[in-house]
């Protein structure tokens, strides 16, 4: 069913009508069909109304959490890579600490972003009833999800590598080099590979991103402040970790 109105816009619901054989009609099914009739939400004259899209429905609010968390992760990992480059050129240990804590906080937000994405995918993409089915489908068949997980694992590798080397100077040099390559691989896995093939994730494999259909002016009013807020929160946590490290170093003399 496609509803179209000049004022309310267009809303499509592909499962609004179900054809069943007359001998198999169930009275309870009829009641269900009536209760699930599509609602067309108007976002032109209602401040609170978001784009009411098929598949996403009310879960579109997750855009304010899942997407900004990945923005924070990308920003912090980029900052961390810059810290590693500056450390390798200047030898100032402070920048190696910047790189390390950038990765730690970036991983925290990345993991949260991945988990919110998993939950979102389970309830909107209809890819399985159990978590086992969902994970199997996503990790084995969807390039974006698998590549994003690989990208996160690169940085878990960074943390493990850093903990495995005892010599401080050697550890700083090796992990800084690793961090630069890890960021390049992260960009390839998270943003390049998924665009080369099909993916259910918006903005990849020919699927439209939010900016084209769903991110209307009402949603933007909340989305952009949310992005700024999450990035500030990420850098605040990062600065707290850095200050704790400085205090610890001063106490140790």
């Amino acid at each position: 069913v496609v509803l179209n109105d000049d004022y309310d816009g267009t809303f499509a619901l592909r499962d609004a009508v179900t054809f069943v054989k007359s001998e198999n009609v169930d009275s309870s099914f009829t009641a269900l069909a009536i209760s699930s009739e599509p609602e067309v939400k108007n976002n032109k004259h209602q401040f609170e109304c978001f784009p009411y899209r098929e598949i996403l429905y009310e879960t579109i609010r997750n855009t304010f959490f899942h997407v900004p968390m990945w923005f924070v992760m990308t920003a912090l990992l980029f900052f961390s890579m810059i810290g590693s480059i500056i450390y390798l050129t200047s030898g100032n240990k402070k920048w190696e600490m910047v790189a390390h804590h950038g990765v730690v906080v970036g991983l925290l937000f990345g993991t949260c972003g991945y988990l919110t994405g998993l939950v979102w995918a389970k309830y909107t993409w209809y890819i399985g009833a159990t978590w086992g089915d969902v994970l199997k489908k996503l990790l084995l068949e969807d390039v974006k999800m698998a590549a994003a997980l690989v990208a996160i694992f690169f940085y878990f590798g960074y943390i493990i590598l850093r903990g495995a080397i005892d010599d401080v100077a050697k550890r700083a040099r090796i992990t800084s080099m690793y961090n630069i390559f890890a960021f390049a691989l992260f960009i390839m896995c998270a943003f390049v590979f998924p665009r080369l093939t099909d993916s259910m994730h918006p903005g990849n494999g020919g699927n439209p991103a939010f900016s084209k259909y769903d991110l209307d002016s009402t949603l933007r009013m909340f989305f952009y402040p949310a992005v700024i807020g999450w990035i500030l929160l990420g850098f605040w946590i990062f600065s707290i970790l850095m200050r704790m490290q400085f205090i610890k170093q001063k106490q140790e003399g």
Partner: protein
Amino acid sequence: MKKYISLVIMMVTALAASAQGVSASNNSIMTRDLKIYTAIAVLAIVLSCIFIFLFYIEKRLTQLEAGQKR
């Protein structure tokens, strides 16, 4: 005093107008079943805990830094 009274009247009028607009068409599952309030409450609690914890650490760090300077 008249200014404040007129300001209050204007604010109340505006609120009533907004409320009418919301109740007329905003009848989605989230608002109709009041699920949106549960979602907002859970989010508010989680985010409040995170911010309270961060402000607490921030305060302690500021004290420690001041102590180290002295």
